């Protein structure tokens, strides 16, 4: 019986092998199909990026004249410019960076280097990750209730800077923690061994090594803040501003003035939003031109951050 079965099996073997072969070939083809579909799905993003940029350039590039950068907004589309918008963006970003970056980097260092394992630390960590998930417009509502009215900062550059500083804090905290965590323990132990205190170890050894990582997070955070519109509209940024805030530098003592902090403002994305919302292609061209400026700004910043991280990954071998 067995020998018959064996003989039958042997006779059928070539047929089976052929079947297995076609089966494998078919499955390999599916592998290829899936890889191609995956590549296509992935390239949708790249195609969108290109389409968006080309669309902006076609619509708006003829408006990118020097006048556009040095004119105030105007009721006549052809005369309108982004002077008050880019000055506003610079001033708001200055406040955001000065307040947000030290705060967030310190918080990240504390959580990674100092924090004991207790309920307080757990509470802080939960809050940081929750804040990262809060929609940006909610920060605007917070700022409207707290800064604008309760603290009386008004609809000012100061309120705007503080709002964005709170918003980008979680991004920078997370980046700082990752950068600090990547520094090997041997570095810290070597410093402790020669008698350094905890702050000396952090300041002189851990921080210098983690600067590129922290910088990456800071740049990505600031790029996010530059493009952010909704929270600033919520606190009441003006959409039509035909004046500049007081100059921070003066010729009379004390030479530096902080009156601009209390000034009303507009920023690039809000100016763009204002122009998009108007009917008529003339204003849409202005919006596209402003869009080109914003996209270039954020792309350059993000590109630099990505480059920094890439270099970081390649250069450092502990």
């Amino acid at each position: 019986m067995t020998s018959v079965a064996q003989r039958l099996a042997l006779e059928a073997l070539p047929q089976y092998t052929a079947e297995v072969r076609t089966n494998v070939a078919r499955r390999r083809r599916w592998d290829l199909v899936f890889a191609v579909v995956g590549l296509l799905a992935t390239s949708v993003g790249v195609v969108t990026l290109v389409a968006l940029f080309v669309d902006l350039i076609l619509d708006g590039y003829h408006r990118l004249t020097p006048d556009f950068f040095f004119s105030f907004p105007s009721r006549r589309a052809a005369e309108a410019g982004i002077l008050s918008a880019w000055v506003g963006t610079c001033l708001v970003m200055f406040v955001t960076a000065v307040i947000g970056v030290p705060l967030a980097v310190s918080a990240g260092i504390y959580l990674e280097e100092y924090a004991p394992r207790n309920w307080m630390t757990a509470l802080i960590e939960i809050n940081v990750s929750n804040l990262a998930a809060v929609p940006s417009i909610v920060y605007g509502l917070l700022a409207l209730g707290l800064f604008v009215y309760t603290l009386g900062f008004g609809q000012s550059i100061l309120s705007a800077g503080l709002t964005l500083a709170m918003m980008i804090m979680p991004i920078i905290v997370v980046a700082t923690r990752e950068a600090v965590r990547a520094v090997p323990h041997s570095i810290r132990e070597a410093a402790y061994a020669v008698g350094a205190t905890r702050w000396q170890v952090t300041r002189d050894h851990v921080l210098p090594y983690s600067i590129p990582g922290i910088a990456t997070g800071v740049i990505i955070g600031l790029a996010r803040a530059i493009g952010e519109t909704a929270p600033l509209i919520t606190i009441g940024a003006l959409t039509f501003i035909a004046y500049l805030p007081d100059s921070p530098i003066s010729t009379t003592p004390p030479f530096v003035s902080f009156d601009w902090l209390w000034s009303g403002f507009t920023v690039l994305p809000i100016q763009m939003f204002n122009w998009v919302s108007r009917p008529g292609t003339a204003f849409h061209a202005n919006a596209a031109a402003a869009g080109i400026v914003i996209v270039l700004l954020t792309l350059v910043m993000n590109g630099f951050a990505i480059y920094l991280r890439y270099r970081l990954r390649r250069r450092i071998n502990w």
Partner: protein
Amino acid sequence: MALARPSLIRPRVHHRDVKERVVEAILFLCAVSAVAVTTAIVVVLVIESFGFFLHVSVWEFLTDTMWTPLFAEPRYGILPLLCGTLLSAGVALFVAVPLGLMVALYLSEFAPVRVRETVKPFLEMLEGIPTVVYGYFALLFVTPLLQNFIPNLPGFNVLSPGIVIGIMIVPYVGSVSEDAMRAVPNALREASYACGATRLQTTLRVVMPAAASGIAASFVLGIARATGETMVVAIAAGQQPNLTFDPREPAATITAYIVQVALGDLPHGSIGYQSIFAAGLVLLLITLLFNVLAHLLRARLREAY
């Protein structure tokens, strides 16, 4: 230990200790500011919403089908805004789920290292583009494009911003899913290959089920993102509260309503002013809900390995 120190250097050590304490206290205060911000968000939203709910009953807020706070005869039903929000998030998800999943599967299991290293920066850049620019793109590029296929599509509709938000969150959904897939131990893949499975079989039958809860978490986080998205819908969806489930119609989301009110000139303390805080509270609760859900899903993932 303090007794064992030679008395000569003690003053210096003492000085150093004080500095250490001060530095630690400052760093601690910075970290605690995160708790302060969260608390402030909740307090501000709840206090201002409380003023709102003194005028409008919670029942009316949740069941009325009209949202017209700025009209002469105001009605305060959140349903149309909620509907617009979920509708645009739904359209976004309809785009982002298949694309995000394919991107994650491809980048995690199929793509050669070089392709992955080239594509990922592009995806990150896509994430970095300001939303107001996406709004422009939705209103003046995608809507006219769609009007070629859907003849009666109005200039403002939910479909176009929904699609754009979907493409916008693909990198986010993709990278969260990819992280989940990469967390699947290689031993599982090797076992599958050893049984003679091809790459696709391994991907679909081993990696995907093993990473399922992480992938689900990425979808939920995607909804949370899409729900909180503001500028794209404010620009391209028309800012009219509309209780509809047809994405071809114009509608307003919670976020678009807040923008609309903020652009106007409502006096501080008026009911219209308070209404944006009530709307914001609803938005915060929705995103919180989705984030807790995602957290639970991911916690399940961590348990498995």
